[in-house]
């Protein structure tokens, strides 16, 4: 009798333990209120080294725990799954490509204190300002683009090799760039530029309006600029490109064996090239970009409004994006500053890059940043539209569909969004 009772008791106890375990999973993550410890979430490499964060702890007594996601896509998935709920870090980094998606939830983010306004470039601040005029994100870096070229391959093809002469050569519109490329490919039989889709990216980043109007109207298929960019890329960039898109196994192999002669180069791309092609000599960067300036990439820091330590988090975000600290991050990881004061600093002007034939990269990229006149409006669906258009270019590149068919496929595809 007592034996069976014990059995039941044991079963009940077991079930209770089980319930505890299950509920225990949901209950953790509480904050201790005495010593403030902030969490900071970034991805790739923002240049926020442990030493740099230790400086903040020294100044304020606030500990910072830094979590790095491997890619911006991982960070994006995490961000939107937890935004407005719980589990986000006190300070969260957001990449420009999915920044407009985050802007839809501007009310869930703590605004930047007004006294910090004016710290960043106008267009960097403009794209982080919500409909009520609140600045909701702290700019970190930007991606002003120059043209990287292989001086050795240029010499072999009879093109100028000197940085200033190459800049003069590329100074012009995209057609000028394409015709130089066509001559190069005709003469050498080798691809001129790494990928057709990076050209598309470069062209789209020079438009005021891409696929959506600022009021949310979708203009993707009617936008003549987009159609013109597509035509130009498919007709003129595809024949001179090594690949349709970047970051594939083959693309990396070509980069490290030095197959193509040019690449469109935002500041962060310099590290990609020198890191993946250590044995290729001859890379250099010219202070020019077809069709005017262009920005590719760059990030923001945001402070979720429902965090436990919003005020301290704002302090950390403001500190990390201050011109002085951003310059340290630039030294660590090459993230080019978006802060007006940092852009004017002597330190930046003096920066050079040994791998790129000792090019004055600081000076060149500053000049490229000044050439940027437009910040393309990227609506919440920008990522989808642009991805589908890149697929259209890839289909032509791969010979799956011709120019018009591929465009029509894109039109059908995007009208379903």
């Amino acid at each position, binding site marked *: 009798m007592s034996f069976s009772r014990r059995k*039941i008791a044991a079963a009940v106890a077991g079930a209770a333990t089980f319930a505890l375990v299950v509920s225990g999973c949901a209950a953790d993550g509480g904050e201790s209120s005495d010593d403030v410890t902030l969490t900071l979430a970034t991805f790739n490499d923002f240049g926020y080294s442990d030493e740099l964060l230790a400086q903040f702890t020294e100044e304020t007594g606030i500990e910072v725990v830094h979590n790095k996601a491997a890619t911006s896509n991982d960070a994006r998935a995490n961000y939107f799954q937890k935004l*407005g709920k719980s589990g986000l870090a006190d300070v969260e980094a957001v990449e420009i490509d999915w920044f407009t998606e985050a802007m839809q939830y501007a009310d869930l983010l703590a605004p930047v204190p007004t006294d910090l306004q004016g710290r960043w470039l106008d267009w960097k601040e403009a794209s982080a300002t919500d409909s009520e005029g609140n600045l909701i994100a702290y700019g970190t870096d930007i991606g002003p683009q120059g043209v990287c070229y292989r001086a050795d391959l240029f010499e072999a093809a009879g093109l100028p090799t000197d940085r200033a002469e190459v800049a003069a050569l590329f100074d012009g519109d995209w057609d000028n760039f394409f015709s130089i490329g066509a001559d190069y490919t005709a003469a050498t039989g080798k691809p001129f530029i790494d990928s057709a889709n990076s050209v598309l990216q470069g062209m789209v980043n020079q438009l005021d309006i891409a696929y959506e109007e600022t009021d949310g109207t979708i203009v993707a298929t009617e936008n003549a600029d987009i159609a013109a960019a597509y035509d130009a890329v498919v007709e003129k960039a595809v024949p001179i490109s090594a690949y349709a898109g970047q970051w*594939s196994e*083959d693309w990396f192999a*070509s980069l490290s064996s030095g197959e193509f002669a040019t690449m469109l180069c935002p500041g962060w791309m310099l590290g990609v090239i020198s890191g993946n092609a250590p044995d290729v000599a001859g890379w250099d960067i010219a202070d020019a970009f077809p069709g005017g300036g262009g920005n590719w990439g760059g990030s923001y820091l945001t402070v979720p409004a429902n965090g436990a330590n919003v005020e301290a988090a704002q302090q950390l975000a403001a500190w990390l994006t201050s011109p002085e600290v951003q310059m340290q991050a630039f030294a660590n990881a090459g993230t080019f500053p978006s802060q007006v004061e940092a852009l004017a600093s002597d330190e930046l002007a003096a920066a050079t890059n040994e791998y790129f034939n000792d090019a004055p990269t600081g000076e060149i990229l500053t000049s490229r940043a000044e050439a940027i006149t437009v910040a393309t409006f990227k609506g919440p669906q920008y990522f989808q539209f642009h*991805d589908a258009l890149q697929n259209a270019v890839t289909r032509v590149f*791969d010979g799956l569909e011709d120019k018009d068919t591929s465009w029509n496929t894109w039109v059908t595809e995007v009208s379903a969004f």
Partner: protein
Amino acid sequence: MSAATSKDAPGVRVLSFSNKLSRWDLKISPYLYISPFFIMFAIVGLFPIAYTAVISFMDWDLVRNSGEFIGFDQYIWILQQPHFWTALRNTFSIFLLSTVPQLILAIFIAAMLDRNIRGKTFWRMGVLLPFVVAPVAVGLIFNVVFADNFGLVNGMLTDLGLDGIPWHKDPFWSHIAIATMVNYRWTGYNTLILLAAMQAVNREYYEAATVDGAGPLRQFTSITLPSLKPTLIFVIITSTIGGLQIFDEPRVFDQFGRGGAGQQWLTITLYLYDIGWGQWNFGRAAALAWILFIIILLIGLINLLITRTLVRDEGSRGIEKPRRLKKKKELAR
């Protein structure tokens, strides 16, 4: 007297209560013992399935955790998408290209391992080794093999003066490449299951067959294969479910993980992921999840029907007693 009765009465009552208790114990305890699984299943299985069904009828905002009821719109939207039908074609194509060669190979290897060979454990562990490798790692390895320009296979082909295979351009070849990754991982697993079934076959049949003068091939087709049927059905059903849910291999097949520029290797789960986590449209993703659930259910039913006919037809061979077979059939389900 009355005091004695009143003293006895609770005693009787206690006894009858414990009697009841022991009867309950007998009846309830088994259920309590197995309940953890079902409680767990209700939490991590049933609840998400039901919640998905709810979301599939709503225009859902993930961040704000709220939605608006819109009925079957999202199901209709999914069925109107050309991408859905491409994904369905790709899924079935990859499924067939992986399952069929895989099973043939698994049966062959299992038959080899079933023989008296030296170092049995070594070989058996050897075939299972690829299964231990994480699918994403398999993907990374095979990306080097199947790269279009600098891949191992195309490198060899161009050395021989042949044209490279358009692995990432042509749907068929991309399916072959992905099926190869799947086969690499799962052939060993299926081999071991089939090997276990082969070893359960009564050795006397083989002896009798040898006495009757049947060669190894005849023994294989007339004894081994028929005995394997129930196990084969289990293997086919599990690989059907696995094949229709294929995700990891096509996901890592290129750098974007979205099934190719022309949707050459877009599978249903990949499409689902893209709608859910790329476009943040959880309503549509939930609807697609339910469509996939129904497809798998249908295929499962077809499998069951085929299974029944196969097993009934097999019962007349008299190699296994029908009762035992029925048991195995239930196991196989």
